[in-house]
């Protein structure tokens, strides 16, 4: 994985001192809260309902054991002993003191981490496929491109006061595990005539106006990547709407201009920009590529001789997938225990995961946008051992991609924007469907909950989505069906009138019963919905 050199380290260290100075000036009253806000936001520091929340960047979701351990240390020392892994592959802490935030950044910098641009109207942490470097179906490791973009976007002088936040994802497989087309810019690496390049999609997003990004360019090589995205961003910075925060994302600009006109403007800008020599030389691409070389895979021994264990077998079947290296597996650690808070992990659990990564996964972990953790390189012969350790730490729910593997935003329990709580709804649904056999029978079912229209819980992309709204002072939940953040990207549709907190749990059960009754062989919930449409589900809910 990527390691800092003296330059990377010097930039992050300078940032710590800069933020320490900004906090000092704020605490001394030299700058107003209004002026401080964009500065703290560009360091991932939000003022929430009860305290400051700090969001720490995990670039493209990749980290090593020492970095993971540091996340546990921060949870223990500066928070209440836990952290929350997010849909942006980051981690956030909910109980931070402003005066301690600079010390936290200083501690993070000792392990090559930071909170730069994890919020604010700038280019956010670049996200990627959590199976990058391990997936059997990738054409290249997308993190090389993501790292080029990370460096380019860090303190970009022209694009730090954009009309609105800006999210970029890079994938390198046909199977999309990163909701690529629901980003402001999504890049899919492909090979054409033996040359690696990226398809560039621009203008996707969720929020209150969900849109699937159209393809703006069919092929951009690594030599032109930064100039091309520079052109994409410059058109947006100049012409994106600034009169209305709800219409300020690039998706609205592209919707209003049309993809063809936006593309024409980008191409024109690209000609001007390309002449400036903004793109690093191939040697830089090669330097980064070398750091993402596959780990040294050991000759794989026979699987440990253990007594048959149906619980382990179920976990292995549900939470591991094939690795590109024979004899290895990719393990997904579910942070979705029945009745738990999706994405939360205690400091002790974080330490356990760090330890397992160091011992069994070439010292690598990944954070997934579904708020789980991945051990990307585990020898099949070690799986039983890894499972035992996870199970002892309460980290072995065998529910990846099942109905209880819920994405949920923090909701009204924490967030100052929320209209309704998300966490209790997630807990009640997971409890209702706690029976593992019942979950497995329902099969792949991506359920996503947002506590307000901003859609941090990705409800638009849920096979089943839930949107919390405020209805005359009472929390009310709308049900949506048919979304997907995968390669078959689609936006979910609202079924009809909303439900109470308990009513939405019943409603979810009702639509899953329709599926069980009507499904054809091999169909997932989403497939049945797509075949039948909304009517039978509506009939069962409201008929």
């Amino acid at each position, binding site marked *: 994985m990527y390691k800092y*050199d003296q*330059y*990377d380290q*010097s*930039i992050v260290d*300078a940032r710590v*001192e*800069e933020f320490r*100075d*900004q906090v000092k*000036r704020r605490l001394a009253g*030299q700058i107003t809260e209004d*002026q401080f806000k*964009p*500065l703290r936001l560009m360091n991932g520091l939000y003022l929430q309902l009860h305290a400051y929340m700090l969001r720490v960047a995990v670039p493209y979701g990749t980290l090593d054991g020492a970095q993971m351990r540091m996340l546990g240390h921060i949870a223990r020392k500066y928070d209440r002993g836990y952290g929350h892994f997010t849909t942006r592959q980051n981690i956030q802490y909910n109980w931070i003191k402003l005066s301690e935030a600079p010390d936290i950044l200083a501690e993070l910098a000792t392990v090559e981490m930071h909170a730069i641009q994890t919020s604010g*109207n700038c280019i956010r942490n670049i996200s990627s496929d959590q199976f990058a470097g391990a997936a059997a179906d990738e054409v290249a490791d997308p993190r090389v491109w993501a790292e080029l973009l990370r*460096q*380019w976007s*860090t*303190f*970009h*002088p*022209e*694009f*730090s*006061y*954009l*009309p609105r936040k800006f999210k970029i994802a890079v994938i390198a497989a046909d199977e999309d595990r990163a909701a690529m087309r629901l980003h402001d810019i999504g890049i899919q690496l492909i090979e054409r005539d033996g040359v690696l390049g990226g398809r560039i999609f621009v203008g996707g997003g969720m929020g209150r106006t969900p849109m699937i990004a159209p393809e703006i360019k069919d092929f951009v090589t690594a030599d032109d990547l930064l100039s091309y995205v520079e052109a994409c961003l*410059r058109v947006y*910075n*100049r012409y994106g709407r*600034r009169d209305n925060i709800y219409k300020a994302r690039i998706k609205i600009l592209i919707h209003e201009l049309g993809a063809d006109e936006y593309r024409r403007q980008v191409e024109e800008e690209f000609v*001007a*920009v390309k002449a*400036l*020599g*903004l793109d*690093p*030389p191939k*040697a*830089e691409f090669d*330097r980064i590529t070398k750091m993402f070389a596959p780990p040294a895979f050991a000759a794989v021994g026979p699987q440990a001789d253990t007594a048959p264990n149906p619980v382990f077998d179920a976990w292995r079947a549900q939470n591991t997938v094939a690795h590109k290296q024979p004899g290895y597996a990719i393990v997904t650690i579910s942070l979705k225990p029945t009745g738990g808070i999706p994405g939360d992990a205690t400091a002790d659990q974080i330490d356990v995961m760090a330890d397992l990564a160091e011992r069994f996964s070439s010292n690598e972990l990944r954070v997934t946008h579904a708020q789980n953790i991945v051990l990307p390189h585990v020898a099949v012969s070690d799986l039983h051992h890894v499972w035992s350790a996870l199970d002892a730490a309460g980290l072995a729910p065998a529910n990846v991609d099942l109905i209880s593997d819920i994405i949920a935003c923090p909701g009204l329990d924490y967030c100052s924007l929320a209209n309704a709580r998300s966490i209790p709804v997630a807990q009640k649904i997971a409890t209702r469907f706690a029976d593992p056999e019942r979950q497995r029978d329902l099969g792949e079912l991506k359920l996503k909950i947002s506590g307000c229209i901003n859609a941090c819980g990705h409800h638009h992309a849920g096979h089943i989505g839930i949107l919390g709204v405020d209805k005359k002072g009472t929390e009310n939940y709308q049900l949506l069906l048919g979304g997907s953040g995968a390669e078959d990207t689609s936006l979910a549709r609202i079924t009809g009138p909303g439900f109470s907190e308990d009513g939405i749990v019943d409603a979810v059960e009702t639509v899953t019963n329709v599926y069980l009754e009507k499904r054809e062989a091999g169909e997932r919930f989403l497939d049945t919905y797509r075949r039948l449409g909304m009517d039978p589900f509506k009939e069962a809910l409201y008929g």
Partner: protein
Amino acid sequence: MDKSAMSIGSDEPAVTLDAFLEDQTNATAVRLEAGEDARALLPHLDRIALVEISFPSFRDGRGYSAARILREAGYKGELRAQGDVLVDQMLFMKRCGFDSFAPEAEIDAATLEAALTRYDHVYQKAADGQVPVWKLRHG
């Protein structure tokens, strides 16, 4: 950045873009509002001594692109950031090609000095000539 680059260089009042293009074609100082197209000035760069770019709010980042467009086109005259210009933005402004500032609120000189000198390295090539780290790495 030395102190002289911080001062306001030209005393000639800047005319609006419309006036510059239509009536006052002998003016040498022009003011761009945030939403105006910097490229409209490109045919006239050789006779302009000052371009003043307005920042109506520190949140409005259009002026950064306007500055780069002018510098990338070879504009060598004074480029002034005027308006809601805050000390923590001035490094980015300088990197985009601004070389003078007319902030609405007073700026503490020591804070500014620290802000402009804090970073030894930058990741991107921009309009200020600073060498990006990829160039330092590979020559």
